[in-house]
């Protein structure tokens, strides 16, 4: 071609019919986004008007676009606007955008941020309006407000409900992480809201395109939260179980303050190594991870959950470990199938029911049954006996740890005791304090099958001996089995001039407490066995006193204080996980404000060690008299009952 020029920029021919007189190649280059990066303007700025809304402030930036806070004046309303990033191919990301819009339009749920409307700026830049969520990421919220562990699990369950809703509509979030779950307070209650279904993929329904992931975009997600299948080379078959994995990571982080794999380490290792770690390396269990933290970090984490460090580790160990690890299984077939399954297991855990994630053993089930049941019992002392396997002494001791819970006055306690010779009526219950013991009562009656049904026997103990002022030096040999209860030495607690009849004896399952209650006297014993927890019951009257430092309780939120000096109990209402000790000076009111409880409860702690049930020694030629003969409302002697 004669007279053709060349492009000064790229040197190509510049024919006379070149489009617009420009070099066609250079024009095409523009389509490939080869640009001088030096001048990259911020396209939207505060004060810009989009539709009826005015941009106020940028509040976020994602892989796809920026999020602004915007307001309109008539009527006054504040929303969040998400705008597709300028400079990205509008058409290419249009598909993704449209998918998000389509997906969100299907959902209407209190835990999912609402999408109000969509539109395009006059430049053709798509946007949509969504509910402005004035919240902070869930992990930040929990740590800042020192949310207790059980309440974190409650919050997590709410998140699960939202995600489940989305799954039912065929939408997978694919990017669940703390920054996408914002917690706000609605009427004083913490409500998590899930935002940014940005790379959501509809499991059904027509979408414009599926193949939108490049290698780089894959890693727009937080690597610590990425599921093994997301970290794989083919992204297309991510399903609801990927979201479950993410929820597992969230649970892990909420309970330990750490993610299963550290983000920084993942990124530093490079993409290939990151992939391999996520897909192949087994993370530590939450309780294990906690125990390996440095002391300072561990204390902080525990404090943020209102627990002492060892208690927190204990809290996580077992069921919660299993639940979290089931979510984090590399093989997604082994995870929960639905988010609902996960939520149900968390709920089961919180209600002391067996969880699916844990292989059920007889002992485990029994423990749960025991802890959970709140049996409306008669005003009698029942001890359920479990005629389990023929037990040796040690094993039988363990059996006694399977104690039923007692919740409300005037309910009583149930203890499982295995009487080797299957003659429960030969047994007596003793209280022990220090080296001193006192007879609590004799077994008086078998009253039938216990609440566990089948193998349990219920035995009533007569505790009229309780009224004895002198504790005496009853030397109770450890001939039988059972547990020994220490009772406070102070005689005041024992004196009771009224005819009390049968005491109510309370023992709790997995408890450190065994209490006897009547109108005037409260005495508490507790069991010294592992993981035993204190019992609660209602108390009609309350004591207030200056109490001294006292020791504590358990696993689930009941607390009381015993003022050794005044032999008085102070009633607390509290609900939190374990505490080791409480400073004196705090009054009940303080506690009541700080900790919420579902129902009024009173909690006893004590320094009582254990209770023992013994039977008369075989050496005595004469067997103990028939227990019923010991029942005299007034002045029964205890001599005959002595082993």
């Amino acid at each position, binding site marked *: *071609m004669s007279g053709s020029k060349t*492009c*000064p*920029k790229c040197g*190509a*021919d510049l*024919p*006379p*019919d*070149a*489009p*617009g007189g*420009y*070099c*066609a*190649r*250079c*024009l*095409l*280059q*523009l*389509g*490939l*986004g080869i*640009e*001088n990066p030096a*001048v*990259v*303007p911020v*396209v939207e700025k505060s004060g810009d008007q989009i539709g009826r809304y005015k941009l106020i402030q940028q509040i976020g930036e994602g892989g796809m676009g920026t999020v602004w806070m915007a307001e309109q004046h008539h009527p006054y309303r504040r929303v969040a606007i998400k705008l597709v990033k*300028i*400079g990205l*191919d*509008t*058409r*290419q990301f*249009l*598909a993704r955008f*449209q998918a998000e*819009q*389509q997906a969100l*339009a299907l959902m209407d749920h209190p835990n999912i941020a609402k*999408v*109000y*409307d*969509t*539109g*395009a700026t*006059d*430049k*053709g830049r*798509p946007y949509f309006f969504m509910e402005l969520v004035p919240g902070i990421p869930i992990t930040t919220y929990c740590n800042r407000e020192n949310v207790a562990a059980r309440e974190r699990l409650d919050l997590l369950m709410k998140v699960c409900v939202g995600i489940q809703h989305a799954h039912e509509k065929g939408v997978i979030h694919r990017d669940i992480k703390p920054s996408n779950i914002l917690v706000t307070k609605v009427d004083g209650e913490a409500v998590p809201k899930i935002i940014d279904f940005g790379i959501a993929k509809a499991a059904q329904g027509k979408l*414009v*395109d599926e*193949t*939108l992931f490049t290698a780089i975009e894959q890693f727009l997600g937080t690597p610590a939260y990425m599921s093994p299948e997301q970290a794989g080379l083919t992204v297309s078959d991510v399903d609801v179980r990927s979201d479950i994995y993410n929820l597992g990571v969230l649970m892990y982080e909420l309970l330990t303050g750490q993610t299963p794999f550290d983000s920084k380490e993942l990124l530093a290792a490079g993409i290939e190594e990151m992939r391999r770690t996520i897909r192949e390396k087994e993370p530590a269990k939450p309780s294990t991870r906690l125990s390996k933290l440095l002391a300072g970090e561990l204390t902080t984490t525990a404090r943020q959950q209102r627990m002492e460090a060892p208690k927190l580790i204990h809290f996580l160990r077992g069921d919660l470990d299993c639940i979290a690890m089931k979510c984090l299984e590399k093989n997604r077939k082994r995870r929960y199938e639905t988010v609902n399954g996960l939520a149900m297991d968390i709920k089961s855990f919180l209600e002391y029911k067996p969880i699916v994630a844990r292989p059920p053993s007889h002992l485990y089930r029994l423990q749960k049954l025991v802890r959970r049941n709140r049996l409306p019992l008669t005003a009698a002392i029942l001890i359920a006996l479990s005629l389990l396997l023929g037990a040796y002494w040690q094993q039988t001791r363990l059996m006694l740890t399977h104690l039923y819970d007692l919740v409300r006055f005037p309910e009583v306690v149930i203890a499982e005791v295995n009487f080797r010779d299957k003659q429960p009526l030969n047994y007596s219950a003793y209280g022990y304090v220090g080296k001193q013991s006192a007879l609590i009562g004799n077994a008086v009656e078998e009253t039938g099958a216990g609440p566990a049904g089948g193998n349990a026997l219920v035995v009533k103990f007569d505790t009229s001996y309780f009224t004895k002022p002198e504790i005496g030096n009853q030397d109770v040999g450890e001939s039988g089995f059972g547990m020994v209860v220490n009772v406070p030495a102070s005689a005041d607690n024992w004196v009771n001039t009224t005819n009390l009849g049968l005491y109510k004896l309370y023992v709790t399952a997995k408890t450190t407490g065994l209490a006897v209650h009547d109108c005037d006297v409260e005495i508490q014993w507790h069991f010294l066995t592992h993981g035993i927890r204190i019992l609660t019951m209602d108390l009609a009257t309350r004591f207030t006193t200056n109490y001294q430092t006292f020791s504590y309780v358990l696993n689930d939120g009941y607390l009381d204080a015993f003022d050794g000096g005044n032999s008085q109990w102070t009633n607390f209402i509290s609900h939190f996980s374990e505490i080791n000790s409480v400073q004196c000076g705090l009054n009940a009111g303080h506690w009541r404000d700080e900790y919420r409880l579902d129902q009024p409860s009173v909690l006893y702690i004590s320094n009582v060690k254990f209770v023992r049930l013994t039977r008369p020694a075989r050496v005595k030629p004469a067997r103990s008299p028939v227990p019923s003969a010991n029942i005299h409302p007034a002045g029964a002697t205890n001599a005959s009952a002595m082993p």
Partner: protein
Amino acid sequence: MKDVTGKNPDFTTTNWSVVLEAGKTDYGRAARALEELCVRYWYPVYAFIRRRGSDPHEAKDLTQAFFTHLLKNETLKKVDRQKGKFRSFLLTAATNFLTNEWDKRQSLKRGGQHQVISLDDTAAEELYRQEPAAALTPENLYDRRWAFTLLNEVLARLKEEYVAANKEELFAKLQPGLVDEVSPGLYAAWAAALNMSEGAVRVAVHRLRRRFGELLRGEIADTVPSPAEVDEEIRHLFAAIAS
């Protein structure tokens, strides 16, 4: 909430993907989409047919007939089996058409096929004369023309946008910056002429380029089955122009 299937034209699926879906959606919509595409890209077909050896008059007739034939429903029914790009599809279809319909040329001249697309045949021939000499095969010429047609279309759109936004003067001034390197002196000159700060001018030039790039990609996306193929198409056209 707007209809998520896309009432807003910015959100519609691309024309070519609509055509590809012709088997599943109503043919009316697909036909309209195809027509729209044909209206834009008829010239490369003309150039192709012309280069194949027809004289101007014949080429015009053939082109006309081709598009008439194309926009019949039967063609649409066959379309969705191919998942290729519109450009290739059109070329293949035109090639096939010429092969099959060659002997029907005469009857077309005689008969009165009603015009579905009005082609500006004078302009077409004018354009054609400017094409490079016979060095290019018809197919290459077709691709080259396709690229130019595309770019012209995008340029026109870009200008339209600026005019609509009352920025015609800005566009006129800055358009050399679309492809050329802009020296600092030039920025300064433009700034003075437009009564803007130099920084604002830089931003404006950047936006111009960006917007062209976006529109270009959008235009190409309209003719490929999926947005993922836009880059590939650009590269193909790039190679087609290198002559």
